[in-house]
């Protein structure tokens, strides 16, 4: 791989152990080193409990490594969190049910002390981006699962962080909605040029979305393979192209090899 303009995320020799020294000690991650180029779309894939979500939370400085260093945008992960360098989206949309769609998208801006008019304006812009402009005054319970997830993405993007951390954001959606959301996410990525780190356990999803798929081994999580995906601009036809299926096979083989070693 050629040296990029900048690294968005640098992970060097990171290990994470939960409950260290206690009987229920768990080695979640072991000796992970990973560099993520600015503006790239990288997926983390692996079996349940391989620590891929933990790695995402480490990048977000929501938890800290037992060993090793994590940098985000050339600073410590902690500093990046305090500087609001990243936005996050989870499997559950995590919308506040007492806030309307607009108010949910405005939440981070409100915390950052934006004025009400500025907030409204940006929220409207973001809701247009995720094609939910007409639902701004609805409450979360009035939306479908896919729409709620789009609101969560709008919320994560509202303050224009350069990095987007996504933890199985489409995991709870049906297949049709899921494919639709993937196309929209790529559309947003193309428009905004964010760096996206995307945790999933769907192989086709990882291959369709990413430029790079990082395959994790089961516990303790290690990087088993680093697969570059070069399928050009994704269209509806991409899902039916033979190159797409070849990549899926490659990722599946890498995963299966890891499974067989347990």
């Amino acid at each position, binding site marked *: 791989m050629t040296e990029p303009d900048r690294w968005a995320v640098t992970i060097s020799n990171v290990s994470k152990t939960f409950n260290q020294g206690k009987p229920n000690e768990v080695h979640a991650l072991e000796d992970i080193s990973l560099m993520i180029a600015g503006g790239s779309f990288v997926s983390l894939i692996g079996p349940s409990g391989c620590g891929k979500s933990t790695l995402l*939370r480490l990048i*977000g400085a*929501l938890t800290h490594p037992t060993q090793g260093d994590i940098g985000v945008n050339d600073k410590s992960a902690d500093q990046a*969190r*305090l*500087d*609001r360098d*990243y*936005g*996050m989206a*989870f499997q*559950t949309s*995590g919308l*506040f*049910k*007492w806030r309307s769609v607009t108010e949910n998208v405005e*939440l*981070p801006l*409100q*915390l*950052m002390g934006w004025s009400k008019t500025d907030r409204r304006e940006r929220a409207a812009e973001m809701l247009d981006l995720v094609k939910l402009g*007409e*639902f701004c005054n*609805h*409450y979360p*319970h*009035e939306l479908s699962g896919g729409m709620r997830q789009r609101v969560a993405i709008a919320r994560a993007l509202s303050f224009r962080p350069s990095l987007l951390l996504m933890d199985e954001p489409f995991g709870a959606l049906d297949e049709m909605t899921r494919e639709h959301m993937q196309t929209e996410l790529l559309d947003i990525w193309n428009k905004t040029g964010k760096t996206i780190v995307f945790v999933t356990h769907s192989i086709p999803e990882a291959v369709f979305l990413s430029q790079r798929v990082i395959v994790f081994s089961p516990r303790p999580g290690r990087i088993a393979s680093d697969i570059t995906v070069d399928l050009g601009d994704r269209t509806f036809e991409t899902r039916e192209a033979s190159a797409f299926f070849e990549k899926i096979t490659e990722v599946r083989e890498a995963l299966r090899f890891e499974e067989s070693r347990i």
Partner: protein
Amino acid sequence: MTARDEVAREIRRHDRAEATKRTARRIVVFVVFLVVLALAYVGYKAFGRTLDDAQTDWPVIGNVLPRTDDLTMPPIADIFAEFGQPPQRNSSKPLAAFIAEAALFTLREATLGFAFGVVFGLGIAVVLLRSKWIEQGVTPYLVASQTVPLVAIAPIIVIWGSTSLDWLPFEWMTWMSVSLIAAYLTFFPVAMNGIKGLQSADPAAMELMRSYAASRRQTLLRLQLPASVPYLFAAFKIAATAAIVGAIVGEISGGVRGGLGRLILDFASRYTTGPSRLYATVIGAAVLGLLAIGLVTAVEYLVLSKRREEPLAL
């Protein structure tokens, strides 16, 4: 207007209609129960009378169950007639007016007591939220505070209020001391449910706030407090009645005139000359309690219906 807007509006309309239906059903059930209770009262009295008429002695009545004579159990008609009669010989003001005035006086004390209790209770909940240590250390004292008889605290608070609060920019009235006594009962459910409610915020949402580098205050204000609202309303319902009971007991044991407590004390001391007056006043106090709960429930409905959250049980 999109089709989805239409659907959402239709759902809201349906929800409102359902809520109205539920309220109507509750009122009907309440009235039916009231009639059943009244019939039981009348039936029990009639049963006692037949025993008396037959000169038979049924040892349960009068020994275990209350006696059925008009002094112990005045006839329902007498109780309701009492509302229209003046309780004092030299005045033509009917008892209902006395009760209404006293109820308003007590309601004022109770309302202020409720407000004190909510502020104090929420304050405690926020402090307890700070650390598990504080929570575990302080909670036993809160529980213990509720086992201290109100009768013992009331005079202390009344005297403290009348002697030590002259530095306030306004004149401290005795009824405000009664509010403090009422607050002693109301802060407890608010503090207990408050801490539970504040802790009920979804862990994923807490993490989200952390990802936004939100301050502790922001997290409290924007996430934990809104998340605790259903718990708080459950506490407010308990606190509303506790405030009225506290105010009445506070008036009696603090020797404060003007409210239902004083009225009850007066009529109790003159019980043998007019038992139905006491009964009528007690009914007045009960109606006041129901009004207080009804008000809290109405506000709860307004606040929670928007986020479509089932209110917790009473």
